[in-house]
C-alpha cells in the first residue's frame, strides 16, 4: 500500500502535563535533572516554574507514531525542541506523509511530525523514516 503525500496518518491527543507526571517521568526515564521537578531549582535557573522534559513530549510523539505505523518499520525518528512545554499543556501529536524516499536502499515514507499544545503552539517539530 502506497501512502498519499500529505495524508495525515498520525494523530493522538494526550492528557494535560501535571507536576505528578513530571515526577513520575523523572524516575521512569532516569532523567533526574531537577529543573523539571524542583520549583526552587527552576526559579534559580531563571524560569518561572518547572517545565516538561523535552523527552517526555518526544515519548508521546513516539507513542502516537507507533500507534499509527508498526514499530518494526521505524528506521529513524528525530525532533527539534522548538519551545518549552509548560505545565498544563494539552498536547496533540500529528504526522503527515511528506515524501516517499529511498533510504539505505529501502523504499520508505518520510513523515513530517509536530506536537502542538492547546493554543496551537508548536512544541516539537520532527520527522520519521518508515519502511513501506
Amino acid at each position, binding site marked *: 500500500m502506497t501512502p498519499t503525500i500529505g495524508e495525515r496518518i498520525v494523530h493522538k491527543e494526550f492528557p494535560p502535563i501535571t507536576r505528578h507526571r513530571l515526577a513520575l517521568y523523572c*524516575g521512569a526515564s*532516569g532523567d533526574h535533572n531537577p529543573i523539571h521537578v524542583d520549583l526552587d531549582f527552576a526559579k534559580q535557573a531563571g524560569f518561572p516554574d518547572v517545565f516538561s522534559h523535552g523527552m517526555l513530549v518526544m515519548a508521546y510523539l513516539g507513542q502516537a507514531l507507533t500507534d499509527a505505523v508498526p514499530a*518494526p518499520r521505524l528506521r529513524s525518528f528525530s525532533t527539534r525542541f522548538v519551545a518549552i512545554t509548560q505545565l498544563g499543556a494539552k498536547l496533540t501529536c500529528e504526522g503527515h506523509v511528506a515524501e516517499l524516499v529511498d533510504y539505505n536502499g529501502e523504499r520508505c515514507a518520510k513523515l513530517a511530525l509536530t506536537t502542538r499544545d492547546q493554543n496551537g503552539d508548536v512544541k516539537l517539530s520532527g520527522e520519521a523514516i518508515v519502511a513501506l
Partner: protein
Amino acid sequence: MVDQSAVGREFMPVTARIEPGRLRFFLDTLGENNPLYRDAATATGAGYAAPPVPPTYLFCLEMMDAAVPFEFLTALNIDLARVLHGEQRFDFHAPVVVGDTLTFLPRVTGVSEKKGGAMTLVVIGTRVTNQNGVHVADLSRTVVIRNARPS
C-alpha cells in the same frame, strides 16, 4: 566555554540491561498501552524475540545506568541549570528487546555557537551495541547552553 577542542572527546561507556519492571514503569508513566510493548505473544507475533522498547527509551537507558549522571556536562564544565535539550535523533538498525544488555558509547560530535555566542550547541553522538556486538542504534543529542543570563 565549550569549544571545538571538545569534538571527538569520549565519555565513559554505559552498560544497561532492559529490565521488564522498570520498562513497565516507563510505559505506565506515558499511558502507553500498545500490546506490542507489554505482551510477549504480540511481540513474537510481530517477529521479535521479546517485547521491544518504545523508540525513545534508548535515551533513558543511557541516563538511567550512567555511573556518573550527566557526565558530559561535568566533564565539559557545563552548568546543568543552563542547559536545554535542542534536538534529538534516533537511528534504528536492529531490534532492542526486553532482556538485552546494551552498551552506549557517547562522544562529542559537534560544537557550534549561535546568536553571537549567546548560545553554544553541543552534539553528543552515542553508538549503541547489544550483548552480541550487534550495532542496534545511534543516538544524537543536541544540547543548548544558555551562555547569557536570562532576563
